[in-house]
């Protein structure tokens, strides 16, 4: 154990330095007025997508189960948090922190509710049931009174716009640190062993059910937190914001970044949030590009084309280093 800890120290320091540097750069650019209005308004959406992608990666990449209802957890968090900040009357930071915790907790509770029954299912069946749950959440939010139905919630205080970037950034870093530490911990190894071979994992005494539910709950928690941040940035939320397409969008980020690769998720989330803004006016093309990228990526990884490329002599040697889990 001691060796392992030492091994990680260097990497950890580098990551912390990178995180701090990025923060200083962004703050300098923001305060120096180097970012256009459009660019600065993208900062928080990037952070939201990073949180969503990293949390989905825990289920899809590390537990190895496909869920198509991640936007459902996000919507639960968003609604719970927004209702709190609308009806509570506390100082801003206190209120926002309570909203974050409650939003995450409510989403986690639903993650538990959904996680326990779907334990009996695997693979395709699980995917479709999570999709069903996402749709159920959407239609229930559409009907009940407190969420204001299809009109959605307005007047959500803007606590997490780019003017309060620091708190959003801290949340993102916390999310990443917690998930990375979880994945590299004993529990994380158990979760990964379920992905690799759940029968073998079960036979060496890993409580598969417990870890599956755990992954679901933790992932839902952070999706809920991302929802709270999203709601307090945009100010308006509607049930249709969190539909099946949103779940797919997060899935695309995770797949593009590499399943089971946190750093990849972060980079992909950044690129895929910035890209549509660069391609403004070509919104229809964006979905097309997403689709093509998704298919190409899966074909490249799954059909053995990647292995052939790496083993061919044209592939540069310095890229051949085996990548482990971040």
């Amino acid at each position, binding site marked *: 154990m001691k060796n392992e800890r030492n091994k990680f120290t260097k990497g950890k320091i580098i990551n912390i330095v990178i995180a701090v540097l990025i923060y200083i750069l962004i703050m300098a650019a923001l305060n120096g007025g180097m970012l256009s209005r459009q660019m600065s308004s993208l900062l928080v959406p990037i952070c939201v997508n990073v949180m969503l992608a990293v949390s989905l990666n825990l289920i*899809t990449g590390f537990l*190895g189960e*496909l869920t198509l209802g991640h936007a459902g957890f996000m919507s639960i968090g968003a609604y719970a948090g927004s209702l709190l900040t609308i009806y509570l009357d506390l100082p801003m930071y206190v209120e926002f922190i309570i909203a974050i915790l409650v939003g995450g907790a409510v989403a986690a509770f639903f993650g538990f509710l959904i996680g326990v*029954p779907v334990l*009996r*299912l695997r*693979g*395709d*069946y699980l*995917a*479709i*049931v999570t*999709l*069903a*749950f996402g*749709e*159920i959440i959407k*239609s*229930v939010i*559409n*009907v009940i009174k407190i969420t204001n139905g299809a009109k959605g919630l307005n007047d959500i205080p803007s606590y997490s716009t780019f003017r309060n970037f620091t708190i959003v950034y801290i949340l993102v870093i916390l999310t990443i640190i917690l998930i990375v530490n979880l994945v590299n911990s004993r529990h994380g190894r158990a979760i990964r062993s379920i992905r690799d071979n759940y*029968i*073998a994992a079960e036979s060496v005494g890993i409580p598969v059910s417990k870890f599956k539910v755990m992954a679901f709950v933790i992932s839902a928690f952070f999706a809920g937190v991302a929802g709270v941040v999203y709601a307090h940035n945009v100010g308006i939320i509607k049930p249709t914001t969190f539909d*099946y397409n949103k779940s*797919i969008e997060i*899935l695309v980020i995770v*797949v593009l970044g590499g*399943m089971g690769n946190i750093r990849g998720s972060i980079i992909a989330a950044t690129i895929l949030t910035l890209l549509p803004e660069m391609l403004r006016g070509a919104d*229809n*093309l964006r*979905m*097309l590009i*997403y*689709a*093509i990228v*998704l*298919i190409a990526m*899966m*074909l490249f*990884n*799954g*059909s*053995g084309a990647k292995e052939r490329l790496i083993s061919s002599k044209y592939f540069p040697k310095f890229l051949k280093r085996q990548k482990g889990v971040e």
Partner: protein
Amino acid sequence: MNLFQSIMEQLLNGLRTGSIYALIALGYSMVYGIAKMINFAHGDVIMVGAYALFMGMTALSLPLPVAIIFTIVVCAVLGIAIEKVAYKPLRNASSLAVLITAIGMSFLLQSLALIIFSATPIPFKSIISMKGIKIAGVDIPGITIITLVVTTAIMVALTLFINKTKAGSAMRAVSEDRGAAALMGINVNRTISMTFAIGSALAAVAGILYICQYQSITPTLGALPGIKAFVAAVLGGIGSIPGAMVGGILLGIVESMSKAYISTELADAIVFGVLVVILLVKPSGLLGKLKAEKV
């Protein structure tokens, strides 16, 4: 008597939607049985079918029977093409990879349709002009009669095809054990292509019946019936042909009953709720077989 009439009418509505779901669900189920994958793009084949019929009748100004055949051929070819391009290279990849590719394919078809035809709904006049009839005070619209007749005929034909013909037994053999089937001299690739073609042709018929009912065409038209039909296939036990039929009709009836007597907005939630409950009680669906896993 009034209550009886209203229930009967809702039951017939449910039967009509349900039989369309069943047609689509058959495609999901056959493909799942043979390729062990969920063809998420199946719902969008319906949409392509709807546009193909529209283009066939307006741009190419084909007579109706030819336009219908044109639609079916377009969808069957599309089904084969999707399989060859996206799914065949991934035969040995993890099921997660195939599922994600299928989702990508579904997105690809939708966004292509969006670029070609734009998001504005195209109004479509139903091609069914049969008059309804009245039995015991219950109105039966012409479209319901046609839908029920067409779907029943297709289901009977499909059951006979699968159980009685050589190609049908090849399909059953491949779905049971691909390796053994190949050793017995069955052309596995051709059988899989054929399954995709039949499934997509069924989706084309379903698409035609669907737009006759809703009378407007949009790029996302296939998404909802696709998901519902998929739910129907899972409900009945995916991979099972009679299961898909039962699941589809059951789903249609549940949907129309809850729309009429509970709440229009909650109908979808109830449909998905039924799926969740049934899967929790019977994880392999109503008529599905539970396979023991070997290590």
